[in-house]
Each structure stands twice: as C-alpha cells, then as structure tokens.
C-alpha cells in the first residue's frame, strides 16, 4: 500500500513539471516501536511514524533539492508537493549551473518486499522483561517496517520494504562491567532470544571476579568481530571515499598511494548483494553487487558517488553522497573460534571498543577505549575482567605486521544506531588476533 502511495506521488510530481524540468525523489520511511530498558524494566516506550521525501528539481545543469516530511495521506501530500515544486522552481533562479551534476537517465527499476513476520512489539517486550527479571539489564528494542523508494521523471521506480527488529542490550555485573549482546532479524524467536540471553548471563560470572588494572604498554590482544567493527568503522570516516582521497583528507592516502600496505590476510569489500541496505542509492544509481576496497592487504578501490564521477571524469560505482560503506565484508582467516584463547596465550580479550577517533590521521593512527567484557587472559585461560584502558595505535600496524590471525568464523553485525532513522548498514567480520596493541592510559 505504501509503495502504491509513493508511486502515486511520483506520478503527481511528473505532472507538476514544466518544459525542460526533471525530478528525482527519494523516500525514507518507517513505523518504529522504540523501547528503552533499564534495570530490567521499561524506561521509555513509544512509536515513531515518519515519512521523509528528498525531492530534487532539475533544469538543465541547475538543480535544487529539499527534504520534507509527508503525512502519508495522498490528498494532503499531493498539495504539499505541488507547493514544494513551485518553491524549488523559484530557488533555481538563485543557483549557478552545476558542472558536477550526473544523472541516471536510463531507468533501472526494481523492488524488494518482505512481508512483516513480526509479532506486536508489546509481545517482544513481555519476553524481554520476563527474561531480564532479577538482572541488571539495560537495552533498546527497535522494531517495525522500514521503507525506501526512488522515482524520477525518466520513469525509474525502485522500492525496498522490510520489517525487522533489533534488540541491543547489556547485562551489568556492577560498575562499568557488563556483557554486551544483540539479537536482530525479521522473525522473533522467543527460544532463540532466551538462548542468547542465557549465554550472556553465563558470562556474568567471569565479570564478577575482581577486576585487574594493567599498566600502559604493548600487549597481545584478541579483538572480537564487535571490537574489530569499531576499527573498520573508522575507515568509513572518508577512508575509502574517492572525494576524500582526491582532496587529501582520507586516512588511507598512504594505502591508496601504495606507500603503506595492510597484512595480506586483509581483504575488504562492499558487498551490496549480501548486505541489508538497498541495492539502489538515493540518486537512483544501481549499486554493483560488490566493490573491492582492499585485496590481500593492498588498496583495490574506492567508493565513487555520481558527483565524484563527474568531477574527476571516472565511472561511478554506486557510492552514496557520503561515499561510505554500507554492506562491508572482511574475509575470514584460519583461526578456529575454539582456539582463540589458546592462541592468544597471555594478553587481552577485547569484546568491545568504544569512542574511537584519529590521533594521527595521516598515519591512520586511532585512539579509543576498551569497553564492556574485556578480559585479562593468562596461558589461554580468562583470569579477570580488565579495567578500561585507552589504546592508541596505527591501523597499518594493527592490521599490518601485528596481525597474527583472523578467525575462520565471521559475525554479521547490524547497525543499531538510529540517528534520524533506523539504519540498514551492516558488517560481516572475523575476529582478529594481534601480536601487539599499544595501550597508553
């Protein structure tokens, strides 16, 4: 129904155009139940229903755009869009022709719809509260349908619709010591949730041991996929962006120039075909099934938006405006999950990293904190939870000469942040064993 509503709006937009005008339209909508938990109970529960349309009016090489909220009521929204087209038309008089405008004028329509299989959010909340009884459980449930649509005046129509849930939670043992866990999908399975909950609860026993404080220095370390995701996520701050590479603001300039390399075990790719994000981007360009970014430690490619393609005279490869990874995959290695502690020997088992930033962008040096269940390991045995430590180290070292192994098993990590809207990005990552990691505070 919402797809038909969008198509009706697209037809209405086409009817508003004057000679020589075109449009593109991107719809991002959701009807989400959001529930926060603290101390095993509900802190804040509610629903958000929103529809945002980004409309671009084009006249030759001139264009202007606006993002506006829609009511989801066809008659009201038609009137609003008529007024908006007229407003954008007046704005066109103020802007110059854009030499970097690139449009997709060959329609490539498509759709992907998954009917909802979710129960009412209240039923999920009941399951969570029942499981959390007696635990210091804190977390967040987001569930409901998410819609994305694209239309343009050349007749292209794209649609993706999926209902999903994400429960992201922590079980606290006391102070800042907690087990972090998550459960996401399109079908709520009470037994599967309970199994994940019980697994996390079992780990609490380890966190109740007296915590160990270590001195700054270099340590062997194992990064779980969740911890490695934070490191890889920093490369998404423009690292693989064609624009940022060309303007010398990328953290991976030296990798792209061939001056630096990562360990040959490292291969990264943007794998749209196996990700959760739409296969079309907001300007209507279809994304390739996959884009190689790093192949066996060497720079292999960047993410190129239509705008960068026009500016630099190269081919676009489905990059969004920000040229960021949305469906990242990292190749697995040879280390079996069951051998992680044994191969680590003595060092740090780091479940999560937190609040990373660049301390030296040209050298791709990062700083950040350990968080949640991070342990001190001796001779392959977990000895004690570790008090939080700050690291400051270069990706060229961590994933270069200091990378000893990657796990064979990989974990799919779905983005749980909900800035502005629920996200569809994901990372499929192994864990990483490092011979050294520099701790500084």
């Amino acid at each position: 129904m919402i797809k038909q509503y969008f198509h009706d709006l697209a037809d209405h937009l086409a009817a508003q155009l004057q000679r020589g005008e075109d449009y593109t339209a991107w719809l991002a909508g959701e009807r989400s139940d959001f529930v926060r938990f603290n101390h095993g109970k509900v802190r804040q529960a509610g629903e958000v229903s929103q529809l945002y349309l980004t409309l671009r009016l084009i006249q030759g090489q001139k264009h202007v755009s606006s993002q506006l909220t829609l009511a989801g009521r066809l008659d009201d929204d038609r009137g609003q869009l008529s007024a908006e087209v007229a407003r954008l038309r007046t704005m066109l008089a103020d802007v110059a022709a854009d030499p970097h405008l690139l449009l997709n004028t060959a329609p490539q329509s498509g759709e992907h719809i998954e009917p909802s299989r979710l129960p009412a959010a209240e039923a999920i909340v009941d399951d969570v509260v029942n499981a959390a009884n007696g635990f210091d459980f804190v977390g967040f449930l987001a569930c409901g349908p998410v819609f994305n649509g694209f239309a343009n005046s050349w007749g292209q129509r794209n649609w993706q619709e999926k209902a999903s849930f994400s429960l992201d939670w922590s079980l606290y043992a006391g102070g800042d010591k907690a087990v972090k866990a998550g459960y996401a999908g399109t079908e709520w399975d009470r037994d599967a949730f309970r199994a994940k909950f019980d697994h996390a609860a079992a780990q609490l026993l380890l966190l109740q041991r007296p915590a160990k404080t270590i001195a700054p220095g270099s340590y062997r370390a194992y990064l779980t996929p969740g911890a490695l995701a934070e490191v890889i996520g920093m490369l998404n701050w423009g690292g693989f962006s064609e624009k940022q590479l060309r303007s010398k603001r990328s953290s991976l300039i030296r990798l792209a120039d061939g001056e630096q390399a990562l360990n040959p075990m490292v291969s990264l790719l943007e794998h749209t075909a196996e990700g959760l994000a739409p296969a079309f981007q907001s300007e209507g360009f279809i994304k390739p099934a996959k884009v190689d970014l790093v192949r066996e430690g060497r720079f292999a490619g960047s993410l190129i938006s239509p705008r960068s393609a026009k500016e630099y005279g190269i081919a676009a490869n489905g990059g969004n405006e920000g040229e960021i990874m949305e469906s990242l995959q990292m190749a697995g290695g040879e280390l079996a999950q069951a051998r992680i502690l044994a191969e680590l020997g003595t060092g740090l088992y780091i479940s999560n990293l937190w609040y990373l930033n660049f301390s030296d962008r040209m050298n791709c040096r990062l700083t950040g904190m350990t968080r949640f269940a991070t342990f001190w390991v001796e001779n392959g045995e977990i000895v004690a939870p570790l008090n939080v430590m700050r690291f400051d180290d270069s990706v060229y070292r961590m994933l270069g000469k200091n990378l000893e192994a990657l796990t064979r098993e990989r974990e799919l990590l779905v983005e749980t942040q909900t800035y502005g809207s629920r996200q569809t990005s994901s990372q499929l990552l192994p864990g990483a064993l490092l011979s050294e990691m520099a701790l500084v505070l």
Partner: protein
Amino acid sequence: MIEEIKQRFRALKPGTAFCALRFVEETGERLEVRQDVEQPLTSQTDRGVMITVIDGGGYGYAATSDLSTAGLQAALDRARAWAAATRSHSVFDYGKVALPRPTGRYQSPSLSQSPRWTRRELLDLLMAESRACKLDDRIVDWHAFIERKQSRQLYLTHDGAEVEQLFDFVMPGLAVTAYGDGDSQTRSLGGQYNGYCRQGGFEILQQAGLIGAGRRVAEEAIELLTAPNCPSGTMDLLLKPEQMMLQIHESIGHPLELDRILGDERNYAGTSFVTLDMFGQYQYGSELLNVSYDPTLAHEFAAFGWDDDGTAGAKTLLIKRGKLLKPLGGAISQARAGIDGVANSRACSWNRAPIDRMANLNVEPGDKTLAEMIAGIERGVMMDTNVSWSIDDSRNKFQFGCEQGWLIENGEIRHVVKNPNYRGISATFWRSLKAVGNMSTFDVMGTPYCGKGEPSQVIRVGHASPACLFGNVDVFGAEE
C-alpha cells in the same frame, strides 16, 4: 498551522492523568561553495508532533508526521497503549512526577531583525571566500558554507499549558586542506564540526569571522604544513575557547547528566564516574572552576525559554569554586533520583522523546589576560580548535586533539606546532586548572552534533568559555 494543531489537540479526549503534545516545525537551507564551485542547494521542512501520556504510572509516546485530526488521534491511541502495556514493569512510577504546566512565549534573536542578505549575496560571499583560499598548489581542498535554520515549537498539555518558542540558528563554516611532502593539514574557522553556531541573524557571519576568513585560514593551513610536530611530555596546557568547548562538553557536561548516572545510557552512550552522593561535596576542579548551566544566554546556540517537559530555563551554577553542586537532570530524572537538577529535558526533534541533555554549559570567566597566562608558562603548548575527541564510557579517561598549537617557552610563544594532542582523566584534570582567562579571552561556541540516546538523537548545545591554563598535562604529537 499552529492554531490548527491547538484546536485539534484540544478536541482530543485523552482520558489520562497527563497528556502533552509537542509540535516541532523546522525549516532551513544550506549554501556551500567548494573549490570555487557552488554545491547543490539543499533545504528542509521537517514537521511533526509527539504526544506523550502518563497514565496509571505508565509512560508512553507516539510521534507522527500526520498532523490531521485522525493522525493526532492515532498517535494518542498508540501512546496510551504503550503506557498501559508497560505500567506494570516500568522502571519508575511516572505518576509521581509533577510536570509543570507552563504558559508563555520565547523568541531567540531573530534572523528577521539582522542585516539583510539575499541568497544570491550569501552565495557570492561564499564564492569570494573560496577564491581567496587557493594561495598556491599546496592548497588541495577548501570549502565555505552557511547553514540557517528556523525552528517553531509548541508545547501543550491537556489541562492548559501552552508554550510557543521560535528559534533562528545560523552556522557558518570554512575549512582548508594543505598537502605537501606527504603530509596533509586541515585548518578551519571554528572547527570542522560547526563550532561557530549561534542563535540570531546574519550578524553571526561577522561575529564568527567568516568575512575575510578564506585567506587567513588558508595561510594557517600552510603554516601548519611546514610547522614542527607538537613536542611530547608533561607540561602546561593552555586551551583556547575553540577547544575548551569540547573539554567542557565531554568531561563536565556528559558526566553530569543525571540519566547517565541513573544508568539509562549504559547500553549506548555510557555511564558516569559521577555518583549521586558526590553532589554538594565533591571537589570536581580547582577553586578557579565555576561552571554554569545557562539557557538564558540569548545568542548561545541552545538558549530557550522552557525545556521539552515544560520546565522554565534559568541560569544555575553546577560547579562553584570547584565544588560539584547540581547535575544536569530534568523533571523526570530529578523525581527518580530525588535531587534537584535543571531544565534540560530535551529532544532533538518531534520524533524523539526528551532525555537529559546539556544545553548551554559554560565556564565562567576569571581574571587573567591571555598574555598574563602565557607569561606564566615556563614550558607548555597552547592549543586551539578541536579535531579529535575520545573518552571512556564513564567519561573519565580522555584524549583530545586540536588543529593548531603553539609552543610556549619561558613565558613567550616560540612557534606553531602541528598535530597537538593531550590526554588525561576527568576526575583529576580539572583540579590542575591553574588560571582562568578574563572576558577578553572569552568566546561563545557550540555544536549541532551532540549524539546520545536510544533511539539516537543529535542535538544542539552551546559552550562559552574563556581560555584556561592547566598544569602537568600529558601532551604529544603525531608519529615522526
């Protein structure tokens, strides 16, 4: 629209102990020139309501962009349903909160009263600044922008509260990247994340120094490219307001948020090293440290009349002569914790529920000129303009980096240094405050991008501060 919303809400029959409507309509546009090319002109109209109910001790909300009578009724029904579904396992009996019933109107310094600039004139200004940036071939990227927003907000309760607030925001910025000999340095006007952001009109362009900034910032970027690395060691650290804003934000603002202290944010933004028993007795900083929460400073970015639960804003000292007095906690958190707080229950927009957020959080000025503070430094670094920030989930162990530094020896500035960083621990860092600048060193900064909450929210905050001098800080630069 405002009158229609009022009428539609008044016609609803909530049948609950408490029911409020919060309407937010935000319009804006962004003008940008990058490398002497006008960038696509973008604008927004974001409009919606949130209805919140408290009933039988339960709390529920529903937000919608459907502003019709049917849309509001559906939102009310959903909010009631959530309150009913969760009242038996709510973390708190919300029936115990006495939320205010305010009436009034607030308007920030207005765009309509400021010097007139047409869109074309603004684009021409940005183009002129852009063209001034390209000093030589080492300048490889540059851009200048102006973002303006207007927000109209309405808060109603079922039993008569009515507050209307109007805000005008202007956010200018400019950044230049220089590249040479394998190094890249970016210098900006007030930071690469909109440090110069204020309420008001186009007088802010002048206040921020946008006019004439292109050449000046480009020269600083080139100077950084050829400057030596920041030295390493334990030394004095003099922070100017463009970095102080970040230092205040991360290691005073967030740790004092009452919802963090109550544990709400432990799954995402984190907890706090501050505990409830510290208020009224904990020595947060040296006796030179005075920190105010001040939503009444009109031009500062997060000024307001009332917060999003209807509590009136007032200037309040949170830290006085170094002693911690009050947390950043709104009406609901205050009731949960049983201690006084301030009016800081805030939401980023209509589609997110209010939580404890700092608004304008400022360090009060002291009595030293910048020259006096520099003269008192035997060896140290002065730093300005944040570029990197990281802190642990208890808001204690931090590491921050700046765009530009100046080496100071024997009371004199020697030269510029690049890649300046420092690290410390909040619980002890503020006690090393040795001197506080006077009004001549004071500036009003802020950021539109403070992230927190589940669901996630990015909100506007303001931070005004003088320059401040700290002793025995761990300072360092980039890899050689």
